[in-house]
């Protein structure tokens, strides 16, 4: 009871801070300096129709590299934790795990849907510079396909080696592209190592589609690896 009261008291205090933040909030009427720069220059300089993507991949590319790394870290640690467990807890002599069948509908649906999902994922990250969406969204979609596979066959084993190879290669190329930017263009992760092309075209916006594709692959691989690792904990 005391705990709840204290929690409420503290959150009331925090709420007070939030309330004054809210009270002091006045929506901008005009774009501020930074946003205005993006609005004016993103298309011209980088050739990206989707300004958000331009920001994510180029202007704040370092953040995005960090994000990718966050996922990489999370996947690594989850993998670390779980392989660590398996080494310590091999449970020898346990009979092969069996499960009740998951049902016709799910199995068939999976078989039907997964290619489509994967395709959609690729579409989303390939078109990240033109339309809403991008590497993360695409990667997540791809991972959802994997999830579907796992749901359909919980005992399915994914090749960790393949996943991590995709993940690593995508990451390495990502860094490499960034460094190429440093050498050939204005700076690390500058997308203007390739021609900007025509605004709105698929092959345009310099290296953005390439980078976003790599991100998409990497994110997809990382999510998949996390899902796979987590699914292996099921016997508990």
């Amino acid at each position: 009871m005391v705990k709840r009261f204290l929690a409420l008291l503290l959150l009331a205090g925090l709420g007070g801070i939030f309330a004054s933040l809210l009270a002091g909030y006045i929506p901008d009427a005009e774009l501020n300096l930074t946003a205005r720069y993006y609005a004016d220059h993103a298309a011209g300089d980088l050739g990206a129709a989707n300004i958000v993507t331009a920001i994510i991949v180029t202007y704040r590319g370092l953040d995005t590299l960090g994000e990718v790394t966050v996922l990489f870290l999370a996947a690594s640690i989850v993998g670390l934790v779980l392989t660590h467990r398996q080494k310590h807890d091999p449970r020898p002599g346990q009979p092969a795990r069996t499960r009740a069948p998951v049902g016709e509908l799910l199995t068939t649906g999976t078989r039907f849907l997964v290619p489509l999902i994967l395709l959609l994922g690729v579409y989303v990250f390939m078109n990240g510079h033109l339309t809403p969406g991008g590497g993360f969204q695409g990667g997540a979609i791809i991972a959802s396909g994997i999830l579907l596979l796992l749901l359909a066959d919980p005992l399915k084993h994914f090749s960790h080696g393949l996943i991590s190879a995709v993940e690593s290669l995508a990451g390495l190329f990502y860094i490499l592209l960034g460094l190429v930017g440093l050498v050939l263009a204005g700076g690390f992760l500058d997308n203007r190592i390739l021609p900007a092309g025509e605004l709105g075209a698929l092959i345009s916006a310099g290296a953005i589609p390439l980078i976003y594709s790599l991100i998409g692959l990497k994110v997809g691989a990382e999510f998949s690896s996390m899902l796979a690792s987590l699914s292996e904990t099921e016997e508990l």
Partner: protein
Amino acid sequence: MTSPLYIIAVALAAAFLLGLLREQWRSLAYPVTLAALAFMSWLSASWLWALASGSASPVDIYTAGTAPPFAINLRMALPEAVLTLLINLTGLFSALYLKSALLARGRRGMAVLLVAIMALSGIVLTRDIFNLFVFLELVVIATGGLVLLSDHAHALSAGFKYLVVSQVISILLLIGIIFAYHATGTLNIDGMAEAVPGLQNAGASQAFELAFFLMFIALVAELKPFPANGWALDIYEAAHPAFSAIFSAGAGTAALYAVDKLLLIGGPAWLDMATGVGIVTFVAGNLLALPQSNDRRLLGYSSVAQIGLILAVLGQRDILGEDTYFIAGGLLLSHAVAKAGLFWLSGLLAGRQLVDWADLRERPMPVFAFVTFAAMLSGLPPFPGFYAKWELVHHLAGSGRLVLLALVLFGALIEAGYLFRWFGYILKREPPGEADFCRVIFDKPHRVLPVMVAVAAGWALAFVWGELASSLLGRSNLLLALPLLFALSFLLLDWLPAWVKNSLAIAGLVAFFAATWTDYDALRMIFAIIFTLGGALTLLASYHVHGRRVGFYPAAMLMFAGMVMLIRADTSFDFFAAWELLTVGSYFLILRGKHSEPHALSYILFSLGGAFLIMAGFAIAAQGAPQFALASLAHVAAPFAPWVFLLLAIGFMTKTAAIGLHIWLPGAHAEAETDVSPMVSGILLKAGLYGLMVLLLAMGKQQLYGIELTHVLLWVAALTALLGNLMAVFQEDAKRLLAYSSIGQMGYALFGLALMNHLGWLMALVFVINHYIYKAMLFLAVGGVAKRTGTREMYRMGGLIRLMPLSFIAVLVGIIAVSGVPPLSGFGGRWVFYNAILASDYRLPMVVLFLAGPIAFLYLFRLIYTIFLGQLKDELRRVKEAPFWIVLPQMIYVALLIAFAVVPGLALHRVDTYLNQFFPEGGLSWAGGEITSNYGYWNPVAIMIIVGVIFCTVFAWLLFVNRRAQPVKQFNIVFSAERPFRPETTHFAWNFFAPYRKALGFLTQPLVTIFWTTVTDLLHTAGDLGRRLYNGNGQTYAFHFLAFVVIVFFLVGL
């Protein structure tokens, strides 16, 4: 120059590359990791070199080919270079250290480590607030992973608690960032800082302040401020020590720099909050560390405290100005290197209790490493923390921020307390069973190397900071001081046999005196002779020790180095540095005694406490100047002068063991080794007197609230003399008796100084010389006896006169001299004393001193009687005379005493003349053998001759009439019609002055001891109460954090 971006790029590339290597190829993955970290370190180092040498200028690195604030930019300037180098090196050596753990966990662990180091460097480099957030989250997640490298049973729960609170922190940080962006229209740190003053109206500025508060508090929380730090402490305790090293040295550093960047945005308005949070954390962290018994948890609290102190320093940048980075950097680097080193060291030991560190005992290298780290943390010279603390204190005092100053010093004292207590455990506790330390060194060189690197880095930093201090601030680089170098060179020579080192030491002391003796005026000359030649003389006794005597000479020579630097110091800084050096040296020396652990601890604590008061006094006197010539103490402005006087006087009086501050002395002097006691008693105590002389010469009489401070000193001195003597009477332990007697004697000397007249000073100097000679001699004699008999309890001895005649002679001459009975030199002191007080205005304190005088006879008689006279014990019948090398100096002292008794003018005439410039009136006139004052006269030669002639005549007469006296056996006495046969029951020695105790024993109630025990108990209790906050529940820690936020919010009063 290679772009600093490669630090990030290479780390990430290597981390991703590891994913390509199959789990089976771990032995390949590990070198890749090390290579990447080595490259990153090299890159930082090359930038540091280029920037420091001026061959490169600071650069801003734009990403995405776009200028900030539209894209993220990084910066590489000197601070960044230093900090990234620190982080990367910590990472590199921790990776080395983690070899087995990393190889066991595989490539993922290595990748996580790489990313963690990269992210820490990123925090330092980035100039974008949101980018900083991303790096911060990377650190958090990586921490969550690296904690699991540990085998500790509770690493898992520790990591989870950490994640829980980190989540809350990141929520606040994000909210803060987005609103700050909204208010300023930029995410660039420098851009925000520029935008803030331009905010149009009060509303916008208010909104920004709120947003800034959230960002700031979130980043401050990353520094683990008290009390919102329970979540981090468990990490320190549970994680692998190598990771704790990163966590303490790397993460702490990065977070501090992040806060520093934020302060740039917030501006001066937020400095107070930083200071407040910092100093509270510093004090509380140290208090909480005090009751800890787990080594890593203690280090955790200590890390928290250190970082708190640096935060407080950052918060003081309004007065520190350009020195901020010198101070904060000194503290930070000291902290980081020492903490990393200590965490690495802790991994070499099996036990987790502090006392388990006794494993290190007898192993010079790790002990030296520990000493280096502890000294760095406590800010002792010559390490950077020392320079930093000096500057900090001076700035604080110059701006009148005295409360903060007091808190800083208080916290630092507690910190020194637990560090030195720990050191005492290492040297003095029994190792916990089988010490597997040796095996570790040979089996795991990769774990020893980082520790050694940290030690080397510590000394390198000491040199660098000394250079910086001398080039930027005009302080002297202590590591270039010849005496100190001489002392330190004994560290390298420690493999030599003791007698070689002893000869070197003696030669060094004598040569130093020979080279410099022309530099001293009469007053300093006396001290110089005692410190160098006197030291050499006591060192003669050290020849009796065989073997290598590891650690003795560095410590002893450090003490002597400090002392000669003390008398040669002209500026307050040099003086204080020398003071600290001699304190530290003597501490190590005292700690060598078999049972001296608690006493050495109380010695160093009182001494450091005193030293801090001295530093505060100097700082207040300086009034903003970084240092000043000692002589200009005389020109301290009026409102400060009495306070300066008070602080300095109390500081010096801790060394002379004035009453109330004396409780360290008896144990320290009594438990020290045979040849150490004369050094610390006969020589070291004089350093305090020297300080007081310097002080009194410069400042003279000061009044505080109408009370004359020298008058107060008189009372303190008189009480010291009385109670010191009285307590000496009731000691059973011979060396304790002598130690208490020193307290009393120092009381006399202090009294003479406080009289502030010509003869008073002369008397003090007579006491200085006399006390050196006879106390060194008595300690040696008693030490020799204790060595032979195996006890220091006087009632266990008795009748040793026939077995140890030379020691007896020394003690006999000694006690005649101490008691002031003519014709020996002690009388000269008394005579000058009476003449001095006749000229003084104060009469009441003298009464107390009169009472003290005769009491000396009691303990002196007891000393000689119970040891040498009376009944010889059966078990001591085969005792031999003390070793030659212990007796030899005693005989030299006997000769000196007699010489000084006959011709005191040799030493005193010059001093008398010298004193004329300060106290023109009341000097002595020296005509032939006669010494005349305004009141009386005295002819030492005549006295010696007359007494000698009478004595010899009577003696001859007795010889003539009683030439056939027969020596009889021991029990041939008339004893109540019985024949006693047991020496134990016949030797009246225990509780010798029982009636006296009945009459006056109430005066020796250990009130002072009770007082100080209560103080330390209170501190411990406070620490224990604080510990209850940390109930181990992650949710509670989240509560703490939110409460911290809300409370600070209301305190800031936005």
